[in-house]
């Protein structure tokens, strides 16, 4: 069983080195932040694993932004993130998340980073040619698809999610109708999400109904999520309180407000950040169709 995983684990090792080299070459600093936190970001649908009175990190986002607020211009991190109850073909309750941030940038710069990063990793591990997923060919070196969320929904689901606030319908149609169409054969950037789908993103200056958030899809699989960061401390507090209320109403545990993070926001210049699921990328690059194939020990065998 474990012996059979060697090709996947070798590919993982090579991909991790390639990712590091990509950022270090661009003058990023590799950061490590605590895996335990007293106050995870209050996302409506992300549950944290309790750990001795605190919580395991659901994402290093808040720590990374505190560093940005202190003047670190380019930082990245690859670390485990933990999310309670997430288990499926594309979900592990513990997974490796790559996050990177650029000061004085917006989400356009990060889309470009995604493009360059994927090309770099594919080249470094010699996987540019003959990539396949479920017998469909994949390509990384041609022009990528770009759809605004509005365009994609109008085209594949037949309605405009920015014009009507329907979070439930949004989630179901995204999974059933939109995602399966994205990222064949080349990766796809889906951008400008309805404001109610982006708790920590800046709203678009000329269109307050959408946020400057994007996701990277490849082969119908969500690989990365990034945005122009919200740097307005008051607005962020208001959205956090709203998320907490949403969690309380849905019967989910409510976490303490991340006050140190909110304090740091008062000093945060414009910036942008993105998180990418490393295990999913390795899955696509190795042609596997299940996350279990590309980690040494899936949750049930840990």
């Amino acid at each position, binding site marked *: 069983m474990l012996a059979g995983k060697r090709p996947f684990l070798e590919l993982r090792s090579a991909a991790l080195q390639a990712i590091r080299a990509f950022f270090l070459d661009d003058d990023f600093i590799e950061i490590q932040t605590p895996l335990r936190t007293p106050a995870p970001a209050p*996302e*409506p*649908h*992300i549950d944290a694993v309790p750990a001795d009175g605190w919580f395991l990190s659901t994402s290093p986002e808040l720590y990374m932004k505190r560093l940005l607020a202190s003047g670190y211009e380019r930082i990245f991190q690859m670390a485990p993130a933990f999310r309670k*109850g*997430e*288990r*499926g*073909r*594309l*979900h592990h309750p513990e997974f490796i998340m790559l996050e990177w941030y650029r000061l004085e940038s917006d989400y356009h710069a990060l889309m470009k980073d995604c493009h360059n990063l994927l090309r770099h990793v594919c080249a470094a591990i010699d996987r540019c040619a003959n990539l396949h997923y479920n017998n469909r060919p994949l390509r990384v070196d041609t022009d990528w698809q770009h759809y605004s969320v509005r365009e994609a929904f109008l085209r594949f689901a037949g309605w405009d999610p920015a014009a009507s606030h329907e*979070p*439930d319908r*949004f*989630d*179901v149609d*995204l*999974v059933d109708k939109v*995602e399966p169409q994205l990222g064949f054969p080349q990766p796809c950037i889906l951008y400008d999400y309805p404001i109610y*789908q*982006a*708790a920590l993103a800046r709203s678009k200056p000329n269109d307050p109904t959408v946020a400057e958030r994007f*996701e990277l899809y490849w082969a119908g699989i*969500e690989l990365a*999520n990034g945005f122009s960061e919200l740097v307005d401390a008051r607005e962020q507090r208001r959205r956090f309180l709203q998320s907490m209320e949403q969690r309380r109403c*849905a*019967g989910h545990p409510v976490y303490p407000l991340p006050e140190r993070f909110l304090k740091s926001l008062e000093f945060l210049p414009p910036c942008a950040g993105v998180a990418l699921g490393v295990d999913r990328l390795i899955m696509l690059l190795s042609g596997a169709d299940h996350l279990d194939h590309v980690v040494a020990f899936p949750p049930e065998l840990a």
Partner: protein
Amino acid sequence: MGAVLTASDLRKGLKLEIDGEPYLVVDFEFSKPGKGQALYRCRLKNMITGAQFDRTYRSGDKFNAADLEEQSMEFLYKDGSRYTFMNTSSYEQIELLEEHVGDAINYLTENLVVDMLLFQGRPIGISLPNFVELKVVQADPGIKGDTAAGATKPVTLETGFVIQVPLFIEEGELLKVDTRSGSYVERVK
């Protein structure tokens, strides 16, 4: 009523109750888009009718586990189209119509012990042992000189079930039969 379950309990093989009927989760996929909510997509199979349909649950949805119980039952006798079984621990007897016994009628002989599945106390299915022994009640003699490897002929078993067997099998012999495939395994010496 079965235990109350939530969407996060869903997985392949789970049995739940919908509109008063038992369903088996035959396929299951967890999905969670971006910052969105978790969706638990299931293919459900009605355990009585076999009908299948798809349903998506969200976190927070609640439902009842199907109130299912498996009991060990001994087959006693058949009277017309009625089959009588006895619970091996309570000695309580239960009568089933042939249509509810299903394919199991091919393998039921007196005193055979089976597992009976009950939903809210009503029998809905019978699981047989993987192998049973049945006597041949009618067999034509093998055609002399036909030695082709794998050649078979039909014989009738004591339950009325007809199966294909090797040519050397004769009337009165006891056979081991696989109940999953309905096929001959070997002669019981």
